């Protein structure tokens, strides 16, 4: 009897040490949410933990609450965390009143049935650019209002390029870009850096090349997709791009570019502020398509959404808050702080007037596509994950681009 009891105890102990790993699924949604009654306190989640309450954004959130006649309690989460937090909170029945989420997450949350249509709430989204709101549109209905958009382009280091006798204007397609990288390497500098990490960031950075070759996300292993991956793989093989792109987030890729050794860096609008601090002359060109022209780039940026509440009387105030946050006069300072391109042409024009450097970005955003647009919706995540795995497999040399993408396609089809 003693021994059975000890067996049980030891078994429990062995299992117990493993539980913290698996327990995450059960999750305890954050407890700070409101319960039904219009208590005068509304909750608001956003993915900007870097902006505290004293920032312009923090103050705007507070003032939009005050204007709507309530106290708005803001909780910032890490971007990667926010989607799962929202799911757990919705499961517990305490989703926030208003939530700002990364655009590809919108379709997941809609799939979960926890977001209200903007049309049902009576929000006006007519002035928003079609391709920007596309990422939050499912079956013709928008489920959020974009707060701003960002996207990718190529930053270049003027000094490195001129030392290698490369004219940035000559970079018009993949061949001329590769030729430029070759010259830069021959001149003893480093070519290009980007992020090919095995997370969504890696897919985000690969998409302009994938789309620039004419690739289609529903057919990853087409000749066009293979061409895009082969381009990246050859850059790494020939030493035009460093091996550690496999580990680079967009932030560390930027840090590499900011060392001043690299000719090109693929990065986003949000680095403009850091670019001015980098201490060297830089320029920006749009990412070229395979045979010339600008490649379609993916849109980044967040949507203001209104999660479903049991107490539908709360929507009136939530609507006022959303309208306030996305009004033209508030979008301008917000998008300036976040270094985003505004979603409406009126505010975009104002932004370019204030800062002419934003012009190429406004053009890039106009040509951008939502990752979940075109009816992909929640299929996108099941394509994106095999895609970044394929990128990693090809760049690390464990598979050829063809084999890697073929494996990715078969796993994407399984869902």
């Amino acid at each position, binding site marked *: 009897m003693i*021994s059975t009891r000890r067996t049980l105890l030891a078994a429990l102990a062995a299992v117990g040490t493993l539980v913290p790993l698996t327990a995450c699924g059960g999750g305890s949604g954050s407890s700070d949410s409101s319960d039904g009654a219009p208590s005068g306190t509304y909750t608001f989640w956003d993915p900007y933990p870097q902006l505290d309450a004293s920032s312009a954004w923090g103050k705007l959130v507070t003032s939009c609450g005050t204007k709507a006649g309530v106290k708005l309690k803001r909780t910032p989460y890490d971007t990667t965390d926010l989607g799962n937090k929202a799911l757990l909170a919705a499961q517990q029945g305490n989703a926030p009143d208003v939530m700002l989420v990364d655009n590809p997450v919108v379709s997941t949350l809609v799939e979960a049935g926890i977001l209200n249509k903007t049309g049902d709430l009576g929000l006006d989204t007519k002035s928003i650019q079609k391709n920007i709101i596309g990422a939050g549109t499912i079956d013709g209905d928008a489920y959020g209002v974009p707060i701003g958009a960002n996207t990718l382009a190529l930053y270049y280091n003027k000094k490195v390029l001129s030392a290698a006798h490369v004219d940035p204007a000559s970079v018009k397609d993949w061949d001329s870009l590769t030729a430029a990288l070759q010259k830069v390497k021959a001149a003893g500098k480093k070519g290009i850096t980007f992020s090919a990490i095995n997370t969504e960031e890696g897919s985000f950075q690969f998409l302009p090349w994938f789309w620039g070759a004419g690739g289609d996300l529903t057919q990853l292993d087409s000749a066009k997709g293979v061409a895009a991956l082969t381009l990246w793989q050859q850059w790494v093989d020939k030493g035009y791009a460093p091996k550690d792109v496999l580990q680079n987030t967009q932030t560390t890729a930027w840090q590499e570019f900011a060392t001043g050794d690299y000719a090109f860096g693929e990065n986003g609008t949000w680095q403009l502020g850091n670019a001015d601090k980098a201490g060297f002359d830089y320029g920006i060109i749009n990412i070229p398509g395979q045979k010339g022209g600008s490649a379609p780039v993916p849109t980044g940026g967040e949507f203001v959404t209104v999660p479903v509440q049991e107490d539908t009387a709360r929507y009136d105030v939530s609507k006022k808050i959303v309208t306030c946050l996305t009004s033209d006069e508030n979008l301008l300072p917000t998008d300036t702080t976040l270094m985003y391109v505004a979603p409406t042409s009126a505010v975009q024009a104002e932004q370019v007037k204030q800062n002419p450097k934003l012009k190429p970005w406004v053009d890039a955003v106009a040509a951008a596509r939502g990752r979940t647009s075109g009816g992909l919706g929640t299929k996108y995540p099941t394509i994106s994950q095999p895609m970044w795995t394929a990128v990693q497999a090809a760049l690390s040399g464990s598979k050829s681009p063809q084999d890697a993408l073929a494996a990715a396609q078969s796993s994407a089809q399984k869902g």
Partner: protein
Amino acid sequence: MTIARVDRPRRAPTAAGRGGADAPSLPRRYRRRSRLTALAFVTPLLAYLAAFYLYPLYRNLDLSLRDYTVRSFVAGDAPFTGWDNVQKVLDDPTFGPAMRHTMVFTFVSIAFQYAIGLALAVFFNRHFRLSTVLRALFLIPWLLPLIVSASTWSWMFNSESGVVNYFLHFFGADPVGWLTSPDWALTSVIVANIWIGIPFNLVILYSGLQNIPAELYEAAALDGAGAWQQFRRITFPLLRPVSAITLLLGLVYTLKVFDLIWIMTKGGPGDASSTLATWSYQLGFGTLLPKFGPGAAVGNILILIALVFGLAYIRVQRRQET
């Protein structure tokens, strides 16, 4: 240290103490009261176990047996699908490599952690000058938050600017893609994990060494046993119970190592360093569309493996006692 003591061979039979409580001479009322008191003492523990061990375990099992989509996760009406998730996981091309990596990661880590930990424990048992200070220094990997040590290793192993490649360059060797080459990524995370696990082995084995009576060594020395013979004939056999528990705990800790690998490689490049633990996280939380069911199924497989080793340990121990 308490762990070490629990597992020392039982001394006197405990029956004497128990017999006293069960003796029929005690008044009935007293017995009932003492039972109630005992229950009162046990209740908090039971409540704790139920809330923090049993319920999560149950939830995890439930997750793995149902077809959860994001919608049914929120609505809570996921249909029961039995072993579908487990089947899906077993058929996945990631399963084979993940299982293999988990085993290699666990056993190689433990072998080195134990060997190095034991060598250091024997070394520090000699009480030379500064031995306490040095021993304390060896504990540093244990004290550092994992995010700090993992990030530091990741930076040292960086293929472009890492200090390891810098040294290799210094000696004229070619740079190695420690974390970016599929041939090296698993080795690199194992090296970091060994470094982190040594203090745990050192501390437990050292405390086990303290329990070995010094007379044994004196007697052995008088009989003419050398240092190696002393280690082989006295230290190692007497350390066996402590070693067994160290290895078992090490095994369970190492099986579930997630954060270290996630911070250093995220299971990459490709899936070159993905283990069951990282894969489980990847499925459940790593993409924009969580797959809770298969993620939980992988977690359950991990628990089963740990359970098997736990039972094997108990078996071995029981055989030692009889």
